[in-house]
């Protein structure tokens, strides 16, 4: 692990050195080499969290859209309801615990997320609805795509980079080296994760265990 970590850092450094202003394509995989989608990547301390960004997480067809959001700490998130049924959005997460009781349309108050952490969103009316907000204090880089790829801007000097995922055993922080040739970031993921599943019909509710991809 140490070796790999070193090589990744070396790769990041190398990339950062040769192409100071360009971005490098990285890939995030789990311990089995499988790509990890929707992992949040951000630099920890490049810039302090400032400003009041706005972010919108709509509820469309009884799903959070987008399902994964990456925001800087202090961002205000609006939860517009585009469904005809009411939603009751809540979070019991320690980073931000809140509750938007049954509401229609744009009637809910926007929520501000001042603290870094992963906030899990749920709906008390629709148990299968789940969404995550990565609230980071550094500079967000982005979310990995379905194949685990993400473009990370080149760096000049070693920098601390964090990769979060709700199903990771723990958030990973790496010290990226400008010259590192390693473009693969490995994340230790839970083997199985139990997720609420949307029922095919309203009167059967079965919980399925879903293997995280």
């Amino acid at each position: 692990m140490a070796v790999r970590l070193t090589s990744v850092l070396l790769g990041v450094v190398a990339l950062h050195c040769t192409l100071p202003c360009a971005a490098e394509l990285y890939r995030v995989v789990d311990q089995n080499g499988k790509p990890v989608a929707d992992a949040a990547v951000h630099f920890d301390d490049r810039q302090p969290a400032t400003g009041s960004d706005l972010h919108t997480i709509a509820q469309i067809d009884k799903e959070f859209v987008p399902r994964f959001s990456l925001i800087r700490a202090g961002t205000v998130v609006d939860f517009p309801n585009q469904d005809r049924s009411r939603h009751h959005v809540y979070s019991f997460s320690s980073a931000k615990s809140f509750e938007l009781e049954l509401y229609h349309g744009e009637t809910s108050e926007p929520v501000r997320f001042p603290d870094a952490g992963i906030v899990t969103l749920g709906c008390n009316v629709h148990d299968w609805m789940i969404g995550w907000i990565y609230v980071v204090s550094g500079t967000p880089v982005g979310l990995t795509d379905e194949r685990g790829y993400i473009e990370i801007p080149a760096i000049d000097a070693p920098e601390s980079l964090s990769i979060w995922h709700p199903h990771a055993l723990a958030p990973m922080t790496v010290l990226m080296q400008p010259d590192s040739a390693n473009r693969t970031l490995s994340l230790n993921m839970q083997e199985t994760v139990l997720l609420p599943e949307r029922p095919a019909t309203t009167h059967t509710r079965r919980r399925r265990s879903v293997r995280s991809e």
Partner: protein
Amino acid sequence: MSNSFQVRLTALCVGLVLIPGLIVIVGVLGETRDDALRSANVRMQSSEVVLTRLLDTRADMLTNSVNALAADFGFRQAVATQESDTIASMLINHGARIQADVAMFLTVDGNVVSSTAELADSELFPFASLLSLSGTDVNRTAIIPLHDQLYQVVVSPVMAPQHIGWLCIGFTVDDVLALELARLSGVEVAFFSEDARRSTMIYASTQRVAAESHLATVEDTSDSGWLTHQFSIDDTADVSVLAQLPLETVLLTYRRVRKNIIGLFGFLTLVSIGLSSALARRITRPIRRLVDAVGRIRGGDYGADAYGAIAIEHGRDEFGLLASTLDEMRKGIASRETQIRRQASYDALTGLLNHRELMQKLSKNGGIPDGVLLCIRLKRLGEINEALGREFGDQVLVAAARRLKARLPDTDLIARVGSVDLAVFRASATGADVEGMGTVIREAVATPERIDGVSAELLATIGAAVSPAHGSDADTVFRRSLIALSNAELENKSLVTYQNGQDEDRRRRLAIANDLRAAIASDALHMNYQPKVDFETRECHAVEALIRWQHPRLGFVSPDQFVAVAENSGLIGQLTRWMLDAVARQLSEWDDTGLKIDVAVNLSARDLESAAILTLLEDTLDRYSLRPNRFVLEVTESAVIHETQRAARILKELGDRGFRVAIDDFGTGQSSMAQLGSLPVHQLKIDKSFVLAMDGNNTATRIVRAMVELAHSMDLKVVAEGVETLGMWNTLAQMDCDVAQGYLLSRPLPAGQVSGWISKNTPALDQDIERTGVFREMASASS
């Protein structure tokens, strides 16, 4: 016999009804029982499915409740606080809503955060298998023991909305649940487990006691009174379910049916026995009646018409036929018996009574009635049979019988008692009637009759016996009439009446004949010797050997009697042999003592019939080294006369060999002088009847004198027998008689006394005979 047939018939009928019934009943009952057991077993097998299904359904219901609880927003909110006190309160509060007996909350990793049941610190969550995250259809329910309690446990993940922990709710599996399951499944239910030491833990049971007692012997299913089926309900815990059915319940219907059927069968048995025995009695009744009727036939009662009644009653059926057949048999037997009786009583040829029937008739009143019994022998009938054939002889006999029947009164009993013997009994007749009856019978028999052109003539010899004079029973009288008949034949008379004593003579002769052989063999006979005295010299030169027999029972037996018996019974040869041997031995003894006398022995006429006598005599002499001239062989006149030719030859032979021959009892026979002259004879012995009859110059005296002179003229010596008085002696001496023998001189003496007598008397004889005391003594003794 008919009784046992009746019993068998009853048994057969009963058996015909009951045995198939029994077979059917056994079959039906067996099948019913098997079926009850089979369907009970099926029920037991399906009880597993039913119970599993019931438990699954309950699990589903409980799962729904638990899931609803896990999804409760307030609950999730409280859990999300991660405050253990709050969580514990929630578990108690929300668990009570769904009547949970145990509630626990666990982390995603399965660590117990809070529990209503007390768990030791080190204790891990006991139902870890339910927390699987993998698979799509994870079973989150189980029936699991915890702290000696059995729980149906349901685990539900708590999603907020991501998976934040587990809610685990347990519902007690207790007797109440067991009862509910039993009610639904229809079998008794017990939940139990067996640990490694095979001790059984029962968590819940409908019949705790029964289950416990059964569980002790869970393998044994047949005798315990329970049908059991054991199965496992959960792979994760060693808890088994025991489904049970009491046999009593299973076999309830079967037993009721069996009881009813057995009762019914018992009733049927009684009814069939009753009906069968009535039927059997009815069937065997004619048989019994026939047996009675046959029994009467056996008893000799042929008149019974029992068969007729049976035959009419039964018509042409088997019993009717049997009855009429028996009736014909009865008639046949009756007529045959009459015939047989007739044949048994009557002579088939002549139609006269037979001997047996005559005897029966005469003995009818215990003894023979007074009357005369005549036995008639038909002489010549045997000759007629021989000459003209038996058939002709039979016709002659039949004709004679017919004539006899015609001439005798009907009251006379006429019988055929032998092949040529008839008998006639006339009741109330006496001895005076015998002659008259004899005459009638003789004439009847002797009347000539022509048969097939041949005239046959019979003669009757008749023996008569009179009752009661000659006997009081039929057998005796008949036997005595036969004695009279044989006497008549012997005496050549046509009619002889039995004289009392003849029967005794006959018996005596029989006893003599019986004992003589033994007497000869055992030397019971002995010889006496009577001296013979010469008239001229008055000396004794010879003795006559006389055989004597002292019978142990009959006393003295006269030689005349037993010699005659010996002659008739073929013992004469042995007798002669014995006598000659005894005499020769005696003679030899006398020779040894110096007594020189000759001996005269008497030979039987039979001895002269064969030349064997020559050999016998010579052998005897040889044995004792004697010469023949010491013997005088005395032969009776009649013996010589009847067998002249052969006897003469033998006598001559004897003479040639040196024996002297004397004619004994001379004068009693009818010998001619010519015959006498031709015989080789040396002496004549004048029969004592002549000597004893001499008186003066009477006829006897003259005959004796003539005989003496005749003998002398033929050069024969004369011996006079029966000299008993001195007068006789003198008369005979005067006639020149040669030798005297008689009581005047001496009675026959035992051998031992002969020598004494001769030495005592011979000198005296030399002197005056008149003075001889012995002579006088003898004379007086003989008179």
